[in-house]
């Protein structure tokens, strides 16, 4: 599996560290709503197909990347800087929705 880092180019997956489900949106820090926080901390999507993920180029430039990866084929269809684009863009679930 290759991930094309926007800085470093196509690199082997062994250079990257998986940093979790990219669909999560951190609730307002001032919020204390337990449901929202619970969904953020514990709920993870596990789709068979395209999935939004955060990967860090840990063995390279260390940037966090918003990656859309197909969990069935490992095909990576989009890689962008998480810093500039936030969470990846393939769909988005409602907050608190169980998947």
């Amino acid at each position, binding site marked *: *599996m*290759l991930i094309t880092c926007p800085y470093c180019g196509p690199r082997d997956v062994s250079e990257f*560290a998986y*940093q979790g489900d990219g669909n999560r949106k*951190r*609730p307002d*820090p*001032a*919020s*204390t709503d*337990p449901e929202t*926080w*619970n969904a*953020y*901390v*514990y709920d993870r999507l596990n789709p068979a197909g395209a999935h939004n993920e*955060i990967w*860090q180029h*840990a063995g390279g430039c*260390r*940037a*966090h990347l918003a990656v859309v990866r197909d969990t069935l*084929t*490992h*095909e990576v269809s989009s890689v962008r800087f*998480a*810093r*500039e684009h*936030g*969470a990846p863009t393939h769909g988005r679930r409602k907050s608190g929705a169980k998947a």
Partner: protein
Amino acid sequence: MSPRRTPSGGRIDRLRTIRFTFDGTAYAGHQGDTLASALLSNGVSLFGRSFKYHRPRGVLTAGIDEPNALVTVLRGDVREPNIPATMVEIYEGLVAVSQNRFPSLAYDVSAINQLGGKFISAGFYYKTFMGPVIGPLKGTRFWMLCEKIIRRAAGLGRAGNVPDPSRYERMNAFCDVLVVGSGPAGLSAAREAATSGARVILAELDPTFGGSANWSGETIDGEPAIAWASDIVGELRDHDNVRLLKRTTVWGYYDGNTLAAIERVGDHKATPAKGAPRHRHWTIRAKNVVLASGAFERPLVFAGNDRPGVMMASAAMRYANQYGVLPGDKIVVFANNDSAYSAAATLNKAGATIVAIADLRQDVSEDCRTLARECGAELLTGHAVIATEGAKKLAGVKLAAFSIAAGVLPGNARKIEADCLIVSGGWSPTIHLASQAGARPVWDDDLQAFLPPESGNGWYGAGGFNGTFSTADAILEGFAAGRKAAGQPEVEIGTAPDIEPAALDPRPAPVFEIKANGKAFVDYQHDVTADDVRLAHLEGFVSVEHLKRYTTLGMATDQGKGSNVPGLAIMAEAVGKPIPEVGTTRFRPPYAPVSVGSLAAERFGDLKPDRLTPMHDWHLENGATMYSAGLWHRPMIYGEPGETVEQAYVREAQTTRQAAGIVDVSTLGKIAVQGPDAAEFLDRVYTNLFSTLPVGKARYGLMLREDGLVFDDGTTWRLGDNDFLMTTTTANAGKVMQHLEYFLDVVWPELRVHLTSVTDQWAGAAIGGPRAREILAACVTGTKVDNEALPFMGIVHGEIAGAPVLICRLSFSGEMAFEVYSGSGHGTHVWEALIEAGEPFGMVPYGLEALSTMRIEKGHVTGAEIDGRTSARDLHLGWMLSKKKPFIGSAMMDREGLVASGRLELVGLISLDNRPLNGGAHIVAEIDTDNPHGSLGHITAACFSPALGKYIALALVSGGKARHGKRAHVSDPLRNRFGPVEIVSHHFFDPEGKRMHG
């Protein structure tokens, strides 16, 4: 006299003789022979004993699909078991031995197994060892009793136990087109792709390129196929953009068109070339792949189909044409399709008598009748072999009338003498790599085979792989696939090359099994019979995957290359469904066995880096006993002669509390947090405030995870308005860095903060004890170090022995203490200056044991207590949770479960029986050695406290503070340690902190 060398013909070099031994007997073969062809040429027909029944077995195939003739190759003391004799190229001095026989191949006592009939039938292991067995010999124990006996009787070759001295290496390669297989289709594809300028890799598992051209005996446009092939190989060699890999098996097809291959560089040589590896692993990233991997001929399933002398028709043809070996003199042919007729013609031309051809079909084409007539064979259409005769080699076959609809017809069987029976049950395309790549094969009724889809994501197929069995069509398909794979526009395909002799019809009759009395093998290597498959069905196994596991069909080292489709067909018949509805199994890597050495290659031994502090050599020179803390090497104690570990750390801790001690703290994680928003960032990641911290001061900080549990702790120093130096625990340095980077990059990209790991840039020495300040004063220049200049948690810049240092007054030991940081290049220089300054004051260096002892006495927490389950309140750090701001973990830290009563809380323990306590021991109210139960918590760290003169420990105990002053017991059945303890506050020593504030 059965198998023998023909006087002429074949691709072997009769002028070059190679000597080798098999089971201790010396033989000779020729350059170009495999072990199988050389042994056959010497008249050897018995190659091994079978897996379960120890039946005599010969050689069935001529290639990588060989299930029977497995041998062990010895090189000195190194054993390489389970190699098909068909894949071993002989070399001068080769030593090979047969497998699975005792005491010898010819006289095997375990062969009696087969007389016992059903002893090891399908599911034997499951039934015997997993089932409910009544009585004292329950499943597992019964297994242990039988294991030794069965392991000896059943199985494959024995693995060696001496270190493998061979070298292995790994290569990465990139190409536009990888062509797998170099038969006519593959060569044609490679030529077309190479001509277009694409970077091409051509991989061939055999020692010679050409595939079937080496043994088909065909001519292509009037030229012998082998010459046609070598012309193209020569052409490819002249291209700079082509890499030719022979003896290279592509065994794995992974995502992103990444393929794995193994090149057998040295296996065919008596002594490997200097510097050359034995095997080379290739990771090939190909833009496109051409799969031209051919097809395997399938055996028919009939009684006695495993007797030595029974051989695949195409293999017999290959032995004759490629190796100049006749597998027999009097040959019977048994087939359900036309392709065996060309084998018969070849063998006849090479000098064998074709006694008879038994064809399962009533109707046989005129082409075949002509071929049968030409080789003088009696053609018996509508006939089947129902038994074979002979002991260790074939003596004859029994034939009976057969109809496709009704099977074996009643009537007298006829016996025919023969020393070789060649068999063809149709062809199965080698679709393994496509299947690995996710392609779903489709059943083809005409060819009675699973065919790959037309193309896949990143690959194109050609030739036998596609079920295209005529050489002319294979060459055209290769041409087209090569163009497509190289990204060339499609062109009108020219005229087909002229192939002689004309291709025969490859479509077989839909017959896989001839039912008659006797063991009829589906999977030769695992000794799975047709009856085993039916038994599995009777016992309720309907899914193919379950069937495979229950009968072990197709799970041997050949992975069912020949047995897969016949097994499925028999299952389909038992279930009463058509074959495609029963389904096929998905092939997984590796396509063929791969040496573990090639996967490891240069990466063996200790693969972890060693992290050494700048003062490492000083520690070694000064008597430190080192141990590893993660990747770091750290001093445990600086023992004096005759001291035990406990005596050493007690002395070190005691001296530190009485005078002074120094410890290397360079391993602490250090992160420079810089930028206009650095303070705001720290406020968000720490539970307490850092924006209020004045420049020149340090503060102890606590971090939580998002789920509200404690993550890490450490001090952070404000060096400037926008410049902080954060320290983390040694163990969590990497994790904290990643945690901070994630939040900065993904969650708060608007914060103007830059993070730099500076762990390795700073050397750190902590000196503590009542004389510490005097020692500093004696060696620091450029700053005062008195209470006014350097108050508790204060920071100053200065110099020690000319090297700039940063000094912070903070304490882990509980003593008046200072951390002195210098550039790591100055580390030893500064350390030695401190040691020299400390000498008049009686300062000692101390190791991790003393460090840990002093921190236990003070009740400071480390990774043992911050174990991913404890909250800040559990550790009595609730006072650090700011109410003025949100921070990471603040929303989740007050959840019901995290504030419930009865949680494990940090306490201190004192051993009341004056014996040592152990980390991991449980705390209970009452001791019950027979049935330990009722854990109240556990010990996290323990030591002998010189300050208290007692064995003490820190523990996480339910109820915590409420139990202070109460008695409990340690219960440690593993170490048989039980005894009374008193639960006390975790602040054992100087709870008010007078000493460090001093």
